[in-house]
């Protein structure tokens, strides 16, 4: 506005004076350079440089990697959260989410506990190749699979299967370390006793703390085993807990476990919306999912064209994100289970299968954005990264 107009406003002189004073005594923002990033990185660094401090053999197929920060600082996390490790295996850069199994009260390291998976590219790399002293990179702690005092009761029921024990281990360690006023009933399902991770520590904690109630459920025990056998059924839960009122439910394990346990919880009248579920990677055997077009076979080949230039071929049964990585294209990812939307990309042409219920924003759907970690090609595709 022109000066002569400004001067006609009532109160103009006062404001001019105010401006002069504030210019004289105001903050010099140039001194705050880098501060925003510093504050954010204390809680949510996008990248942590880690070094393997120790490797602990848990079972024949499972190891814990103890990870320390190269710069000495690890951001706090909530028990149950995960980090996404970024690794290069066989010349392919990829990522995997691992729940932290150590307690948040332990600020010197994050433990991740890795179990061998058939053809598990990353798990086998971590188990066979990584040595003490090696460097790794991860995201900051992520995820919403944790106790929330507003949503959850102080008494929680956890159903774990296989390596799905890891987030619960962190929760239980925190409760016992810090003496938190919370109770955990942990049902841990396993094929055999030898396969159980943390069995000894859990048995001890359960004996030592009345707040920890550990119920191993073993599918095929040898004759000496005295505990619960079979699967985590409605009956097992009911007879252990008695009343289910005033309890919150958490579940984490392989996909077969959800298929079995969720209907069991239905039988007990537990509202599914109130069950906190952790997702563990993309669906297995996607072609068996409801809605998968019967004319498409898992091994059908399709061409994916990226940003209008580079193309490659991939299988219908392979998640798009993994196929992109195999072809040297890095898409930032975190949960790799469809939840976090980090690997969102635009589908310009063609069709993909995304399991029903994948939380994609409504307007993202409208404009063709997909979560590539759980999207499977049903057609030749054109995508935009």
């Amino acid at each position, binding site marked *: 506005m022109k000066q002569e107009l400004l001067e006609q406003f009532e109160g103009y002189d006062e404001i001019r004076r105010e401006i002069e004073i504030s210019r004289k005594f105001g903050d010099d*923002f140039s001194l705050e350079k880098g501060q925003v990033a510093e504050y954010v990185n*204390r809680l949510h660094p996008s990248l942590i440089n880690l070094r393997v401090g120790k490797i602990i053999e848990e079972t024949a197929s499972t190891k814990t990697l103890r990870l320390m920060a190269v710069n000495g600082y690890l951001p706090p996390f909530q028990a149950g959260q995960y980090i996404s490790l970024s690794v290069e295996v066989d010349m392919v850069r990829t990522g995997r989410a691992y729940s932290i199994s150590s307690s948040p009260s332990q600020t010197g390291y994050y433990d991740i506990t890795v179990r061998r998976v058939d053809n598990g590219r990353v798990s086998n790399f971590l188990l066979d190749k990584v040595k003490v002293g090696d460097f790794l990179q991860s995201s900051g702690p992520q995820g919403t699979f944790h106790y929330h005092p507003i949503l959850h009761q102080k008494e929680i029921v956890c159903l774990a299967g296989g390596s799905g024990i890891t987030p619960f281990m962190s929760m239980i360690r925190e409760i016992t370390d810090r003496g938190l006023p919370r109770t955990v009933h942990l049902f841990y399902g396993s094929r055999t006793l030898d396969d159980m991770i943390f069995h000894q520590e859990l048995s001890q904690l359960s004996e030592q703390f009345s707040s920890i109630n550990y119920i191993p459920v073993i599918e095929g025990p040898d004759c000496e085993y005295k505990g619960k056998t079979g699967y985590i059924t409605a009956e097992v839960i009911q007879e252990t807990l008695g009343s289910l009122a005033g309890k919150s439910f958490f579940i984490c394990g392989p996909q077969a476990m959800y298929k079995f346990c969720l209907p069991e919880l239905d039988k007990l009248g537990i509202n599914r919306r109130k069950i906190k579920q952790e997702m563990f990677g993309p669906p297995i055997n996607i072609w068996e999912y409801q809605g998968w077009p019967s004319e498409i076979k898992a091994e059908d080949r399709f061409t994916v064209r990226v940003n209008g230039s580079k193309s490659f071929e991939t299988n219908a049964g392979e998640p798009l994100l993994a196929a992109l990585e195999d072809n040297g294209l890095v898409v930032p990812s975190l949960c790799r289970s469809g939840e976090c939307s980090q690997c969102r990309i635009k589908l310009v042409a063609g069709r993909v299968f995304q399991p029903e219920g994948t939380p994609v924003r409504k*307007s993202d759907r409208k404009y063709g954005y997909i979560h590539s970690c759980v999207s499977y090609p049903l057609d030749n595709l054109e995508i935009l990264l």
Partner: protein
Amino acid sequence: MTDYDVIVIGAGNAGLTSAAYLTQKGVKVLVLERHNVPGGSATSFCRGRFEFEVSLHQICGIGTEKAPGPLRNLFERIGVLDKLEFLEMNDLYNFLYLPEKRSITLPPDIGEIAALLQGLFPKEKEAIKAYLELVTKVAYGVISVQYLQDPDASKDKYPEYFKYALKNTQEVLDRFFKDPILKSVLGAYWGYLGVPPDRLGFSDLALMFRAYCDFKPQHFKGGSQALSNAIADAILENGGSIRYNCGAEKIIMKNGAVQGVMTQTGDEITSRFVISNSSKISTYYELMDPEDVPEPIKAELRQTTVAMSSFVLYLGFNAEPRDVGFIESTNFMVGSIDNEMAYKRMKALDINENDFAAISCYDLIDPQFSPPATCQAMALALKYADPWLKVPPAQYADTKYQCAESFLNVLDNFFPNIRNHIEEIEIATPLTFMRYLGTPGGTFYGFDNFIKDSEMFLPNDSKVPGLYNAGCWVGMPGYQPTLESGVRTAKSIVKELNA
């Protein structure tokens, strides 16, 4: 030859509209965005079966098909009008006065507001009429003199505007009214501008109040992310490029003029023009070398202070709005009519009954906003970041939960069923906004909206050849102003390109 004509840093409202406008004119544009989605604050996130609206309470300036507002025209010009569906709100806002548990709902019409308030405050009947007339005159003064730049503007032609524009809102309210609640009802939109009435220029409040009445408060089908996605889509359709997960590291300068941008991954991309939709502070002090920052800009920056952020609860309920207690879509809960107290509360970490809070429930305007038989609400308390920056990281999560608890306690006063129906909850603090927006103080309003720092006194001039700023750091905060800011900036570049 440069790689692009224009590089836009940041896909917030202004970054997006500037890019859409430019690409429509055939200008070669690249948008750089740190995040993996467009929109900045105009975004959403999913939790469980809910998609939560992050920031938009009500958008102003769209108007109706018959009486279009400036934004409708803007949307048409940048090619997104057909992509959007508008949701009109029935009320301006519901004023909830906590100490007396009193509620007053203003309709979005100046005449109806007058009639309603005159009925409630009969002793001040004349004053209400006179005040609302003044609001209209000052608002039209802003539009004619500031926006349309009437060449014949003068104190004599627009006497009320020149008399009241620079006064603080409280002073004007005090001059007209006696009842403190009446003053508080009429000043409640201060929440959208970020400073209490005794610190807020009357021209800002008058313009906003009148404009919301004229154009009706609205929302978007699909929320603000639907707006951001529509504009991003238009940019791509027009041949523009957007790189997500790609922040700017540096504005490349040569002989005092812009040469391009270096990305965080080290790519150097050349262009003659750069539009920064980043904060003004980071544009000059993070993206440029100190010797390239012009002295007048350093002086301008010293004059300003960073605006507040917020503590927000995103709540998903397993019940219909009415069962939770929501009757109006937009609610302002006022705990104290004392401005000093309100300001003090903005600088405090915790939340208590003296805080100013805005609670929006969008399912009342669009039953499909959330899944069937559910609804969502955003409850927001205005908070500066400072006390949050002092919370030790290890105590951050617990502090967040404690504040959420106390916020729910306050909300209980008007929405007693609120706790019983919560299915999902996400809590955002000033640090959350800092994380996702990258702004100093986690603000989404730019600088404190004091009169001295308004565009009247700090015109949007980057003082660096080739550099343009757009968004709330160089104008008013909020959706309409920032969307318009982008187009204004784009127009100046088009002019420059054609010269």
